[in-house]
């Protein structure tokens, strides 16, 4: 193993453990974070929407459950994407401040995703309220996600998510820089992932498998290097080639 790979592993192992722990909770208690429909909500808008329906929906999806579920979802889906920026924070910080800086980075990053979560979960709840049994919202969201996936704006977000900015070494400036790095990294991460993150929330059934597919997709597209923004298909290129190359190597060993 190379010296650089050894250093990467020091962060990748704990990141992997957190990710696996989050997935273990999700698999053991899938109800911990999936949105519930209300049996009393009218199946069509024409039947009328009562305040009672909304209350019923919220009673089945209390804020505390929504928040816990969202954080669990972030831990499962976003943690694997944080190995490189966390390593940057650790590498460029005084040893005695490393965990403090990483914590501030994570706080900044999660704060952005919590704000995004309010919008994403509100959208998902609205869909449950207005179109509880319709596939139309999923089709519409998938179309939007597909268009965003191919757009130059998505590439701009991905590119900026690869940048690792300098961090001050001492005092309050170091704290501010770590927090700021988390916030900006979070903004670009939300910018590139929001459409894909909305999709699993719309699945009343198969929520966990949908999350798994999106997670693999997000990891795959993160493997690609920054490039010139333009309309193009992105997300599977390097990952596919990587799988083929590694499979070929395994077969050659066999």
């Amino acid at each position, binding site marked *: 193993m190379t010296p650089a790979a050894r*250093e990467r592993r020091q962060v990748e192992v704990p990141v992997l453990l957190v990710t696996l722990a989050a997935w273990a909770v999700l698999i053991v208690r899938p109800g911990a974070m999936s949105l519930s429909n209300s049996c009393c909500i009218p199946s069509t808008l024409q039947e009328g929407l009562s305040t009672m329906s909304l209350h019923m929906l919220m009673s089945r999806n209390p804020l505390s459950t929504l928040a816990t579920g969202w954080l669990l979802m972030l831990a499962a889906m976003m943690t694997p994407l944080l190995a490189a920026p966390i390593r940057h924070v650790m590498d460029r910080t005084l040893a005695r401040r490393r965990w403090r800086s990483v914590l501030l980075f994570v706080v900044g990053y999660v704060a952005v995703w919590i704000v995004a979560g309010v919008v994403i979960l509100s959208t998902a709840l609205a869909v449950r309220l207005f179109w509880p049994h319709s596939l139309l919202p999923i089709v519409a969201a998938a179309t939007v996600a597909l268009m965003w996936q191919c757009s130059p704006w998505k590439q701009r977000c991905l590119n900026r998510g690869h940048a690792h900015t300098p961090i001050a070494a001492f005092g309050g*400036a170091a704290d501010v820089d770590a927090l700021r790095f988390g916030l900006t990294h979070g903004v670009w991460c939300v910018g590139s992932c929001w459409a894909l993150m909305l999709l699993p929330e719309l699945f009343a059934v198969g929520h966990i498998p949908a999350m798994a597919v999106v997670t693999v997709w997000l990891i795959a597209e993160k493997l690609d290097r920054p490039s010139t923004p333009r309309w193009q298909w992105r997300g599977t290129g390097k990952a596919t080639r990587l799988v083929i190359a590694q499979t070929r190597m395994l077969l050659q060993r066999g």
Partner: protein
Amino acid sequence: MAFTRENVYELGGDWAPGILWYARGVAAMKAKALAEPTSWRFYGAMHGVDTKLWHKLGYLPTGDKKPSSKLQKAFWKQCQHGSWYFLPWHRGYLIAFEANVRAEVVKLGGPADWTLPYWNYFKPHQSALPPAFASADWPDGQGNNPLFVTQRYGPNSDGNVFVPVSQVNLKALTIPQFTGVSSGGSPGFGGVDTGFSHGGSVHGGIETQPHDWVHGLVGGGDPNNPQIPGLMSDPDTAGLDPIFWLHHANIDRLWEVWRRNPPSHVNPTDPNWVKGPGNVGERIFEMPMPDGSTWKYTPGDMVDLGNLGYGYDDYAAGGAAIAAPVQGIAGVAAVETGKHVELVGASQGAVPIQGGDVSASVHLDKAVRQKVTQGIAAAAAAPDRVFLNLENVTGTSDATAFHVYVGLPDGAKPEDHPELQAGSIALFGVRKASLVDEEHGGQGLTFVLDITDIANALHLTNKLDVDALHVRFVPVTPVPKEANVKIGRVSVFRQGS
């Protein structure tokens, strides 16, 4: 057939047959259209290309037909920088280029064993640009010498092209490991473990010095417009200058020098290096050959120069003039570098480089600083190494070059204190590394300089146990404000056990 690359200054004259045939071969390649994969400009674009810059410099006339997008995607923008692939990729690039020139030479009736010469600017009296490259004329006085380019401005950007011997060194040859880390410690002799890296962030030892420095000083910048680099100063134009290939032949030779001396210097055996970026699902290295075929190679294919049918006439590092720097500090240079890398201190905020001298203070953490001084005092079997990092260097001018001094007393003249010179940095590749929507994501370049010797010297005079270390940047030529050159952070790291 085995090919031996020879010193351009020792071929037997300014226009010795080897140089004359090179010029004829270059002329033949230059005569081909850009769209032809074996043309001069196509090979230049394989190293790097920026169509706007090429157009501005006159290398891409309006309406000139480009190769198909398939060819561009396969071959262009391949050069490996800031990566452990830097040396093997360039070795293959040289071999393929040489084969194309040789094919043209043979077509013109030249020798079938023609070989690319190298420029060993370290040797006494060989630091000036080889005369055949400095003349606008062929040896018979006729113009249009293909080895001559106008956009080659030299270290003072005045057209006098040479490599200032006092500003280059071969300290990289003392780095024991081929590959290192990107966390502030030694990046190794050959660079850091990366995937396909058309411009990585952290440059390895031999890449920083002498590679980058010679690029920057030979190319220089247009004195009338410092934003316009000399061809050699920018990776997107460097391959268009015929001297590029002789410079890289010397870098390739130095790789072989490092590997042979001492024998404990070994190339990586990690599969991701040996099998190249294709092993991790990325672009592979491929070159268009004169018979129309495509040669695909891996770094593993490049390790044995003899098996490739190549050799050099001289495996001495440089010349007598640079013997001392190669040796480094006795008992230290050959020691393996420790695995533990730790930040000692950093500047508060970014450091803009504008005009002449620029100073910065690197504030040191007391506890970690004491670790460094204790490590020096203990003189352990594996003593700490100390590294100065110039992080996230951004700007718009690749022609920028500056010397870095550490611990220089206030008011002291830098030239009076060569012992405090940490190194010299040329910002080869900084323009592209600063663009947000390019491969670097806009985070710029990071340079790592080994300042262990200086830290030892400062410790012996009680100047290391201070709250802040003064770092001074002395540009070779004044840096214009428009170049926007900025060091994101100046930091000091220790690497030890």
